[in-house]
């Protein structure tokens, strides 16, 4: 398959906000964005899926808690377990944790404020399907914006994630939300499901983002698809 032909789904839940941005990032990376609707049991045969940021169902209960039960998520959970590349950004990360596709959970920021800032990160895994275009330990800057972005998990889980190299990015300089061990993003054991709190889709154009560092996540999955690494 050629990367040009790659079709990447972007899910819209009621309350999704960064779905347009995610679709733009997919397009700028060279793939075709495909809109997926929360209420459909239909993945439209896409090659990968992005769960975008936002406040699905208002996120009044717990971020991602209700979205996890959406019809489209049943399909995504099944497909992810078969190896479909899935990227969860911010609310998408929360949904992946709530769905138990990724371990741990995200809680209210330790300083209890919503925070929007240009965040320096270190990429600490370049083998997952969504991070292979980065250099190991490469430093990037992408926007971060969340109110409930504190990554928490038990010590066992944290040790396991670190031991297996499954922390994909860490916060540098400032830990903006009290995440345990400065964790900004993680992957599953297979490397196809990645979740992170910062927003790479907001760093894809010099005009509107602090950098274009975010593109790497989207080009990575295209490289992965091209190399047949996915599925």
């Amino acid at each position, binding site marked *: 398959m050629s990367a040009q032909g790659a079709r990447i789904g972007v899910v819209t839940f009621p309350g999704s906000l960064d779905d347009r941005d995610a679709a733009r990032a997919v397009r700028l990376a060279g793939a075709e964005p495909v809109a997926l609707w929360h209420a459909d049991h239909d993945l439209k045969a896409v090659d990968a899926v992005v769960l975008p940021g936002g406040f699905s*169902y208002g996120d*009044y*209960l717990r971020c991602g808690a*209700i979205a996890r039960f959406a019809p489209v998520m049943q399909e995504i959970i099944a497909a992810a377990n078969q190896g479909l590349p899935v990227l969860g950004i911010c609310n998408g990360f929360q949904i992946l944790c709530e769905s138990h596709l990724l371990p741990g959970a995200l809680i209210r920021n330790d300083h209890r404020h919503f925070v929007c800032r240009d965040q320096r990160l270190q990429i600490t895994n370049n083998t997952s399907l969504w991070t292979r275009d980065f250099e190991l330990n490469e430093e990037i800057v992408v926007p971060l914006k969340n109110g409930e972005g504190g990554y928490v998990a038990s010590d066992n889980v944290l040790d396991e994630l670190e031991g297996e190299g499954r922390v994909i990015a860490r916060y540098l300089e400032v830990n903006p939300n009290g995440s345990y061990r400065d964790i900004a993003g993680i992957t599953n054991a297979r490397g196809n499901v990645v979740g992170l709190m910062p927003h790479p889709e907001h760093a894809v154009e010099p005009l509107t983002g602090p950098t274009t560092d975010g593109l790497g996540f989207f080009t990575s999955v295209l490289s992965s698809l091209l190399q047949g690494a996915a599925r």
Partner: protein
Amino acid sequence: MARVVVDVRLKSEILDPQGRAVQGALGRLGLNGVTNVRQGKQFVIDIDGELDAAATEKLHEIAGNLLSNPVIEDYELSVEQA
């Protein structure tokens, strides 16, 4: 040691978007007959020693002004001496 539990609930006439979101989800998950859901907060406060009258009064003041927002919320306070 005393354990003080403060339940904070939105006044019944105030819109509770959170409760409504949960109510919607309960229906979609197949729990029928739900007529109303309200979401509140609960604070569990552990205090060394016994609570005297002054401390209890202070607690009520705190519950009514800090832990709850009297404009939109009511609170209930209960003490378990242990």
